[in-house]
């Protein structure tokens, strides 16, 4: 997952805790292997290299794609798992280089879920287009791992994959799990908020280090698949708490895609959120 993964177990038995951590690690790697677009032995590779041929996928991949399709519909096309092609022309390294209009225009025809046929677990995508489930894969892994662990133990656990997390049941002594929201400029060093949660997922969208400066404006790394341009005035960090990590992650991404309208969007959804 290219980020630190931790599992906290509220219990007394170190052996049990180790066994639970083992389960978590195995599940995290399984999902990473299966859905990473940097491997050549998984369904994502098969889809991205099918060159226009239909690809039938297994049940789990089909459900993830179905979920991504729902997100695409709900966001009116802003959340799009085919927008990865744009990331090849944008480099968010804090510099001032933006791609030319021509490069964006050449790239846009390779983006757009509406160009993909998705029927009965069979996906047919024009050659050169790519899908990337990175936007939901980590949150999905958190929820799935939390589910596997909950089936194995009565202890309350906190599963945290690089800041996206799920906190299990209320802990012993009626305590909750304490988490924090980082100052985006000082990740890992300074918490802006402290949250107490139980039986809930939490996810943050935004990476303060990934931006470009263009005509004096700071453009974050969230791209609008319709314009090929970063979403303007997007908050630097959006944290959402929801019943599952997957929903929390999706809602924070959808909010960021609204740019300046992020706060209004989240208020409309009636969801606990923190915007920096």
């Amino acid at each position, binding site marked *: *997952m290219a980020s630190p993964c931790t599992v906290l177990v509220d219990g007394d038995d170190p052996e049990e805790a180790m066994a639970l951590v083992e389960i978590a690690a195995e599940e995290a790697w399984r999902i990473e292997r299966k859905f990473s677009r940097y491997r050549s032995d998984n369904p994502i590779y098969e889809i991205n290299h099918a060159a226009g041929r239909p690809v039938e996928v297994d049940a789990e991949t089909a459900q993830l794609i179905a979920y991504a399709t729902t997100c695409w519909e709900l966001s009116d096309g802003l959340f799009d798992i085919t927008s990865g092609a744009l990331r090849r022309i944008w480099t968010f390294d804090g510099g001032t280089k933006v791609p030319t209009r021509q490069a964006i225009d050449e790239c846009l025809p390779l983006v757009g879920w509406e160009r993909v046929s998705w029927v009965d677990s069979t996906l047919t995508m024009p050659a050169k287009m790519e899908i990337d489930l990175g936007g939901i894969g980590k949150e999905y892994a958190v929820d799935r791992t939390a589910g596997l662990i909950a089936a194995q133990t009565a202890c309350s656990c906190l599963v945290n994959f690089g800041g996206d997390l799920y906190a299990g049941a209320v802990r012993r002594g009626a305590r909750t799990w304490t988490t924090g929201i980082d100052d985006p400029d000082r990740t890992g060093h300074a918490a802006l908020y402290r949250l107490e949660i139980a039986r809930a997922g939490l996810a943050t969208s935004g990476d303060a280090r990934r931006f470009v400066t263009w005509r004096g404006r700071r453009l974050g790394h969230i791209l609008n698949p319709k314009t090929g341009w970063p979403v303007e005035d997007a908050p630097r960090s959006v944290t959402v708490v929801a019943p599952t990590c997957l*929903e929390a992650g*999706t809602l924070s991404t959808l909010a960021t895609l609204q740019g300046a309208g992020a706060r209004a969007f989240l208020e409309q959804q*009636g969801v606990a959120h923190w915007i920096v």
Partner: protein
Amino acid sequence: MQLETPDDTPAPPQSALRERLGTAALALLLVPGAAAAADSGAKTQIDYTTLLYGEQGRAQVVEPILRATRLFSDGQLLSLQLGFDSITGASPSGALPSGRVQTQTSPSGHVTTVPAGEIPTTSFVDRRTGLDGEWQKPFGQRFTSTIGVHASTEKDYDSLGVNGKLSVDLMQHLFTVTVGAGYSDDSVSPVGGTPAGLSDGTVVTHGANAKRVSSALLGVSRVLSRRWLVGVDVTRFEENGYLTEPYKVLSLVDQVTGSPLDQVTDKRPSTRSRTSVLFSSVYHLTDDVVYGTYRYYTDSWKVRSNTLDFSYRHDLDENRYFEPHVRLYKQTAADFFTVGLVVGQPLPEFATSDYRLGPLTTFTLGATYAFHFDPVPGQLKLRVDYIRQQGDGSPANAVGVQRNFDLAPTVNTVSAVVGYSFKF
């Protein structure tokens, strides 16, 4: 599931969007764990390649190889490879050219004549059959072990070996350390018996000669960025036993005229320690990939070599790629290499005139083209290389008439590989 906050604020009403999202998330997370774990992972890949190699006026090699690899869903990998080699043609015997016609006798007793001024060669035919197996197994998230076995047999050479490797992934799989070791037990049974070294070849011993090779490997590789992977591998081989080429000879020349008067057999030390250090880099550009390696090699026979290798893979489209390739290789001679010996002088302890142990520069230029066309499954690959090999044609210790000859004529070779692979 409900959000529980310590101050127990009542959850605000859910929007329609949240309801649909919640339903979709539930549908996804309710896929049974077992079904989710049942990866579409298990795969079999079949690779078939044929290598055709032809040196101008010398050896021709045909080598078909069939390989089957099974990848299991738990990450285990099993592969089996069967290969045949057929080598025919001529190879320099090691003897020097003469101003007159020479006659020579092959290991099987054939007498041939060599025109004046030409490098004597020996004709040969050999067929080799080899079988290789490999089993790779991950342990937990960090360790991968690989065990390999190989066996091969040909008319005068049998080889049986095992090797093992253990890789450890560190720093979230960004840094990998590999240690490995191998052992091969070979036997050399020259046709017509084993001639005594530096002799006229008439006294032979019958039976097999042992040759043992043990090896150790230490490698590290590091992902520097999403685009760049670099690695260093150090390999050490310890060989001991019969390391001589039984069919190679050296000319004994007249110290004034340089005319070959007689010949003696080749003789090499019975131990050889070889060390190589390989630096490699793989860099992914937006679509293309640049591969570069540099290898430094040194051994106890004082052969040192430097190899530079570059290739550039360019994907023409989803179905085709083109990969030009260039390689430069330069080696120094073994300390007992000499083009010939002089009659009347004491024989050295070891001597060879085998061009492969002499000073050598090889330049390779080639390209690979791979493609797939519907509806045939799999990928076809064509690779063609032009290899130009140059030695030292006018060594300083050449005597008399030998100075008039090119003692290491440039050898041009074309090699082609045709491959087909598919997965199911």
